[in-house]
């Protein structure tokens, strides 16, 4: 153990593998020192595990109706109570983690690459390419995101898939800005000139050298944006424009509980707590990642 520690923290790594392992170790160690970051990581871990094993963790079926047990308050049998169709709310919240995770992962997988490529291309080529791409990015950035997403869903039609597309279409500009700013910092450095002189095409330089270096700041930003994505998705669900019934989407569940809020408060409040916990988890995790991976962005403390 002690030898492994020495090997990891060696000032003069003997191989690339040792250097990378050491770097990962140092990042993990300083990450573990922040309690909030660890809490965030724990919440997200629980979210992922819950989503993976939802059918085994949920005590009841998420869609099975039992009209004899309508609107029961929280009890030992139903920890979060039941809704107006007698469905167990805890089971629906547990199955809802799958939808939430699906939304954030899909939005990240669609919007981050678009932003990365646009930003890297703009920063690498500069000149007119840069101006045109950044003008488009700035237009998107200066528009209200939620309203644009609403308008897109209105045109495409309600549904989970269209909600994901609409949120992704409105989230990429921030990543393009970040990728461009990162690219500009090393655009003129020697290693780029070196690979160019070796005959590497622009495509190769951008995809193999520029984009990988923009990754860490983009990942931080994506993690910080996750809370916003979850809130927007829940908002679309609340309006009936996101996941359609009987899918146990948290925003849609709140919307159904709205009519009972005065007498059966648990129907609307419970899914809300799930949203808050998961969003906070992403906020904590993002803050922690930023402090560790990108100390320049650290907020004063």
């Amino acid at each position, binding site marked *: 153990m002690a030898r492994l520690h020495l090997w990891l923290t060696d000032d003069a790594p003997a191989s690339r593998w040792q250097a990378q392992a050491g770097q990962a170790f140092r990042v993990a160690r300083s990450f573990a020192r922040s309690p909030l970051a660890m809490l965030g990581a724990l919440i997200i871990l629980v979210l992922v595990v819950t989503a993976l094993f939802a059918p085994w963790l949920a005590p009841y079926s998420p869609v099975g109706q039992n009209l004899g047990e309508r609107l029961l308050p929280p009890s030992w049998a139903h920890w979060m109570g039941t809704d107006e169709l007698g469905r167990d709310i805890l089971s629906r919240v547990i199955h809802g983690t799958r939808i939430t995770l699906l939304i954030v992962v899909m939005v990240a997988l669609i919007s981050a690459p678009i932003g990365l490529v646009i930003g890297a291309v703009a920063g690498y080529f500069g000149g007119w390419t840069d*101006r045109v791409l950044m*003008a*488009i990015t*700035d*237009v*998107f950035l*200066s*528009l*209200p*995101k*939620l*309203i*644009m997403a*609403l*308008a*897109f*869903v*209105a*045109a*495409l*039609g309600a549904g989970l898939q269209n909600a994901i597309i609409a949120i992704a279409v409105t989230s990429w500009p921030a990543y393009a800005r970040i990728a461009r700013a990162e690219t500009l910092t090393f655009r003129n450095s020697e290693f780029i000139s070196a690979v160019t002189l070796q005959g590497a095409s622009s495509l190769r330089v951008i995809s193999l050298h520029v984009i990988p270096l923009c990754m860490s700041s983009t990942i931080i930003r994506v993690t910080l944006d996750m*809370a*916003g994505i979850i*809130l927007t998705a*829940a*908002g679309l669900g*609340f*309006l*009936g*424009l996101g996941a359609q019934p009987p899918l146990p989407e948290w*925003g849609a569940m*709140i919307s159904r*509980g*709205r009519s009972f*809020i*005065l007498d059966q*408060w648990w129907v*609307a*409040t419970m899914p*809300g707590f799930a*949203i*808050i916990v998961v*969003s*906070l988890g992403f*906020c*904590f995790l993002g803050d922690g990642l930023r402090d560790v991976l990108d100390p320049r962005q650290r*907020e*004063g*403390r």
Partner: protein
Amino acid sequence: MAAPTPPISEGPRARHRAWDGGTAVLRFATVTALTFLGLLAITFFIGRIVPIDPVVAVVGDRASQEVYLATREALGLDRPLLVQFAIYVRDVVTGDLGTSLTTGRPVVEDLKRFFPATFEMATLGILIGVSLGVPMGVTAAARAGSWIDQVIRVLGLLGYAVPAFWMGLVALAVFYAGLGWVGGPGRIDIFYDGVVPTVTGLLTVDALIAGDWQIFRNAVSHLVLPSAILGFFSLAYIARMTRSFMLDQLGQEFVTTARVKGVSPRAVIWKHAFYPIRVQLVTVIGLSYAVLLEGSVMVEIVFSWPGIGNYLTTALLRADMNAVLGATILIGTVFIVINRLSDVLYRVFDPRSR
């Protein structure tokens, strides 16, 4: 950033400055116009990707080929896309947003009727957010690391994690149904509705103009809860940014100098450290006002507030695209204008950025 071309020879200073100012105004106008055009391009695009054929929507799917083509021509849909877009821009700029399918009235008139309610709620919201958020941020920075700093930090994070519509529901259940402290959903109790003549469209102001205190009190009791919720979300952002700006200033040497010279801690914070950041705060407040106008959509639905958000979502659920895009253009325009204005104010207030 494309810097304006510097004059080749060193001309007289005054001329140099005048030239710079002219460029700045021109630049501001161009950027604003381009952004607005971008907004219209997007709404135009959204209007095109609707899977409903607009011609079929007019003539029905049993129309003959000739009728179909004639209608298509009458609607201008046979022209090149760019021409269609140019016509669209002309219509929007001259205030023609089409007719709403839901209300059967021109969208512009609907928007005029619904906007004051949103404006009233959002403006009180930002006032609450600023009057609480700025002092909170300053306090948090002045006592960085203390329990009060932690509380403000958690409040700030909650602002990013709590869904506004959920908070609205819970607040209604607690403060209206439970405690009875505030008026319920809507702008005013039904028996007061339409009593005071509409002058500004802002119920509180109209009641004051009419001199009717009862109605004023009733309108305020309805307004206060949704505005407070919007205020909470802008407060979270404003306090966070104020704190970080203040910390930057408190670490500067002139602040240390002031302290060493024996200036009282209060004066150091408010006169020395706070004074320079008011410029940055203008931008932050502008931005959060814009975001707040946007966020009011969700809050309006929960509180059955007859504003743009309710209009927009009602139209959404009925696929009334003219109304949806009209409301989008209105909110987008206000958003752009506030953004641009806070940018200009920044330049006016901060001599360094000129």
